[in-house]
């Protein structure tokens, strides 16, 4: 284990960071760069930008499917549980209503559906993006945590100068006001 850890510490990853201060410029620039065949690793924005998923060519999220399934599980669980409690386990006469009183089950069923759907989606999201308490984040750039629109491109050290210039030109033309080359120690 010790050896592996040491290996990891020495493993460094290099990136090109391009900073923008406008989401429209960023979107236009992403289209140009992707058309040129350059792979974008990630984009960070201070607020959700409409159309960014499509510009980056991401597949539609599958979170809604998880939401539907976990919601449906919630509906069934809540309804069956209440039916079991109020009909079989502990029948109580409440205001002369029948034991199996469907209308009175509906608010609870609804709430449990929402709860299950929400927890299911959050759980699935955290699992897929490997977010968990105590995780150490890679901070590519200080501005990511504040107000910066940052595009990250994988940078290979053995890249030719020509290729590097080309990428830089694309970024500058797209309106990037700052371009950084950074090495980040891969902690994981």
């Amino acid at each position, binding site marked *: 284990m010790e050896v592996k850890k040491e290996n990891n510490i020495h493993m460094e990853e290099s990136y090109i960071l391009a900073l923008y201060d406008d989401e429209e410029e960023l979107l236009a620039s992403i289209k140009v760069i992707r058309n040129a065949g350059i792979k974008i690793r990630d984009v960070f924005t201070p607020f959700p930008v*409409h*159309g960014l998923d*499509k510009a980056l060519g991401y597949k*539609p999220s599958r979170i*809604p499917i998880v939401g*539907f399934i976990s919601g449906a599980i919630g509906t069934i669980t809540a309804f069956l549980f209440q039916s079991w409690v109020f009909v079989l386990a502990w029948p109580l006469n409440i*205001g*002369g*209503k029948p034991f199996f009183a469907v*209308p*009175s089950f*509906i*608010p609870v069923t609804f709430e449990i559906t929402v709860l299950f759907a929400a927890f299911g989606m959050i759980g699935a999201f955290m699992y897929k993006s490997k977010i968990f308490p105590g995780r150490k984040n890679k901070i590519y750039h200080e501005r990511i945590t504040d107000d910066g629109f940052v595009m990250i491109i994988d940078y290979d050290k053995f890249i030719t100068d020509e290729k590097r210039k080309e990428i830089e030109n694309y970024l500058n033309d797209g309106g990037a006001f700052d371009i950084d080359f950074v090495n980040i120690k891969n902690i994981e």
Partner: protein
Amino acid sequence: MGERFQYSKKHKTFALILVGFGIICMIAGLIIINEVSVRLWANILLNNFFFLSLALGSIVFIAIHNLGFSGWQTAFQRIPEAMSTFIPYAGIMMLLFTIFGMHDIYHWSHTEDLDPILQGKSGYLNIPFHYVRLCLYFIIWSLLAFYIRKTSLKMDTDPNPAILKRSTTFSAIFVVLFAITISASSWDWLMSIDAHWYSTIFGWYIFIGMFNIALAGMILFLIFLKKKGYYKEVNENHFHDLGKYLFGFSIFWMYLWFSQYMLIWYANIPEETIYFNARLDDFPFLFFLNLILCFLIPFLLLMSTGAKRNMTTMAICSVVVLIGHWIDLYIIIMPGSVGKAANIGILEIGITIAYLGLFLLIVLRNLSKKPLASENHPFIKESYTYET
């Protein structure tokens, strides 16, 4: 100037045929049932309110978007604007209905034999005040709808973006007055059919139904015009948002329906449960069909993103929602007026078709008079490049 809808002879003849066919069906229905008054007036009230909902819901749609400085709807805003021109016609019909049919539908209007409960309500439910309110509602709605539409049309000739501000002012006044008038008018025209019964959530419930009807109508008009080759800039992003509206408000409608139902069911007070008793005993099929059409089908069909962006599913859902809300109004109006004898026959269908023809006649003509989009609207670019 932008493109215009070509209101051809074909459209006009089609609408006129609908009106003619509807009236023939209506007369045939009247001959068959051989009893003029109650059923005829109940159906006129139903359809008048249904098509008034289409018109009034659209002006609400415009008003809330004006107030929110929203831009995405500007590409097709002329459709709800044109739909809102039906309000004065519905007003005239409502006035005629009240003059001739009032005593058949509203038993509180027989002032000579009022029971103690209705005597207690006679401060509000009396004939002169009923007329005053009716005129007031339609004057308020027609005038504000007219001015909201007028300011929007003014942008075609005057590129000054400050006009939007005027429109916002009218919208603000409209929204406040509408909140009061819609509750009061739903008590007057629908809830007072069962004059002994009352429900405090009724106004909301009717309003959400109204908004759903207008959304569905708007979507169908938009799809019709898009299929004809107009509105090239309106794309699936706009449909996505309209779909979200239809989906969300269908759920909200169900929420209000259930809020009303559950409190009455739980409290189990005879004077309140009589409302659902009459409906569940005499119209069990329509009662549950209403819930399926207004909530379950749009809920399940429109849940996914793809369905909201697809014109076919949206059209199917809109038609389903329109039929569902027609049945909803039927369930509200018929048990208290016609009673057990009510059913959906040639008379009901005839009057609905006649109203549909009249509505299309007025709306399509008004739609064709002006450009289909206001090119000078400050947010029109935002709408054309809109992405959800």
